[in-house]
């Protein structure tokens, strides 16, 4: 029997991936699991890909997640979803923002932003390679809730539906981590994500 759960979170520098992992860590800790988180800092701060691994359960050894191992991927940007998709296990869950942020090689015209990412992921979901695919316009949700910078929190809301923790644990984590002046908008954004596929 599998001892643990692996969640890979990817995005672009500045999208709040590190905050997302802190939120999740708070929730997981509240439920007394073993927990390891691995982040890559440094040059990634300067608009590069940001990647965080969260692993929890009865026993966790390596903090790393390898290709084919992630039970869940949360991708705050579409190209990043495509970049990290090989890391998902067969039948795993992909929560992905439809937002596009062009990387410099695309901006300068050296490479093209792939146009068919969503279609390809849909096809993989239909054949069961991706177990569940949740594509979300997270930026729009967050804008409607008054805090466009909280888009990743909407994705956490979507992901939360699949994880074995109650909604209140996430709200408690938001309260503990998000500065008071941004709390209301973050809570609203989280709940909008949480209810996105159930309404």
């Amino acid at each position, binding site marked *: 029997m599998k001892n643990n759960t692996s969640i890979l979170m990817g995005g672009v*520098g500045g999208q709040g991936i590190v905050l997302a992992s802190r939120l999740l860590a708070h929730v997981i800790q509240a439920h007394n699991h073993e927990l390891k988180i691995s982040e*890559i*800092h440094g040059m*990634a701060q*300067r608009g590069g890909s940001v990647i965080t691994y969260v692993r929890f359960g009865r026993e966790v050894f*390596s903090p790393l997640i*390898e290709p084919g191992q992630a039970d869940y991927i949360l991708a705050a940007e579409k190209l990043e979803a495509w970049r990290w*998709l*090989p*890391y998902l296990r067969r039948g795993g869950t992909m929560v992905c923002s439809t937002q596009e942020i062009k990387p410099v090689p695309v901006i300068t015209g050296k490479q093209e932003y792939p146009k068919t990412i969503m279609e390809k992921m849909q096809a993989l979901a239909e054949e069961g390679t991706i177990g569940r695919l949740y594509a979300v316009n997270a930026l729009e949700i967050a804008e409607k809730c008054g805090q466009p910078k909280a888009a990743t929190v909407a994705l956490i809301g979507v992901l939360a539906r699949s994880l074995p923790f109650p909604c209140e644990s996430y709200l408690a984590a938001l309260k503990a981590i998000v500065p008071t002046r941004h709390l209301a908008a973050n809570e609203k954004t989280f709940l909008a994500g949480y209810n996105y596929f159930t309404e």
Partner: protein
Amino acid sequence: MKRVLLSGNEAIARGAYEAGVRFAAAYPGTPSTEVLENIAAYKEIDAHWAINEKVALEEGIGASFAGARGLVAMKHVGLNVAADPLMTFSYTGVNGGVVIVVADDPGMHSSQNEQDSRQYARFAKVPLLEPADSQEAKDFVKIALEISEEYDTPVILRSSTRISHAQSLVALAEREEVSLRPYEKSTKRVMMPAFARPRHVKVEERLGLLGRYAEKAPVNRIEWRDRKTGVICAGICYQNVREALPDASVLKLGMCYPLPVQLIRDFAAGVDRLYVVEELDPFLEEQIKAAGIDICGKEIFPTVGEIHPNLIAEKITGRPLTAPLIAADPETPVPARPPVLCPGCPHRSVFYTLKREKMVVSGDIGCYTLGALSPLEAIDTCICMGASISAGLGFEKGNPEMRGKVVSVIGDSTFFHSGMTGLADVVYNGGSTLTVILDNRTTAMTGHQDNPGTGRTLKGEYTAAIEIAPLCRALGVKRVREVDPYDLKTLREAIREEAKAGEPSVIVSRRACVLLDKSDKGYYEINGEKCTACKACMVLGCPAITAGESGMTIDPSLCAGCGVCVQVCKFNAIKKAGGEDEK
């Protein structure tokens, strides 16, 4: 007891606090930076950013001699800078215990090389501990200090990116106050030949004693499971081995130098096949083989990069744990997302100008190393902290035809770290290179640490700020001028004039890091009627400017309002949003 989630670096800081450390110093460097940032929160510890790692260690040595427990932290290449005091500190030994934290970067997530710093333990003949998670990172600081005082030696605590930047749960303890040891004058601290010779004898004796300690040290332990396969490992490799081979027997080393040879012999005798899994050099393997023990290591594992669980499983059992969900799709390739200079970065215009002037750019270590990437591609070299100025002088000495064509580019913090000596050498030895000091008022790359130019300390207290321009004049440079890098024309003229000056010259390009500058400068937009899509602005490599099918656009959410693009547009097509056309 309730456990808290700490990164390896936070845990090391906590360990210093709990172990009664009184003094700590470091120079920032990924992945070690957060050790001192977290120590700074403890009022019981006098902690500061040192100007470089050598200075940090020497301060640690002084604090130790004065009787205090100390911690000094650095990234792997920082230990090269601090190697000189380390080698002789090994001879003098300590008074108060000293732990030297060094964080390696296998895989080079943010470093210029992936040297294996364990070699320094053997080189300096000092013990080395290697934690495998945050709990051990904290606990090993205390053990290191006890070993340091018991065996009269500095102790290296080796971390790596995956330990320093991984978080796991840690049980905390109270601080144990350790009183200052009395200071007594002794020739053991005066390392001139007559006094150093007997100390070397002590060092060799000490190694023997430490080897005996290692045999019974609780940080080295055998975990007997299935006896068919036995693996010797330490640090992050321990976690990866347990992940890959949950049933294998493991000899987990917490102390990687000197090795517990008898314990290794016992373990070897108890298993059918013996492996050593270690990233980078065959450091353990060579010592184990030298002891006459048959073991398999680098025959099957690389000496390059990280060693992850799948690779361990594949090499030892013949099959990886998992395989990629989908193969790379040649129809839908994934564009890279390299790090870039931020929108509004004050370095951008400097590299833009140097590229246009076709200068050979002797570069250095910092955010500005990104000036080497497309589309700026302005930097020719990047070696180590401070190398820009000295290598720049070497260019013109090696090939006199390059005189006047070479510019050395260095950041403010890097200049203080080890650029000043190079600049003095340019003056002393009749160089003519232009040095551009990118003074963005911070140590930006590692996350905005203070430095001797900022007027603030690690603890956030105000202090004297060293001004760069007068410092350069004091070093003998007669031609020193300050330029605002957002003023492209003045910058270009300054670079043209100073590069041709025929004598040492310095341009201080002075403008605060855009991430620290909170002033609202508005944003710019493209006038689609005037824009000819000539793409001149694209040469800046600003992430806010995009070439679309219907001409250029500026993303208002990214634009920092620096206005540099306005100055490169020949068609007056870029204007401030809500304002009049400029230029």
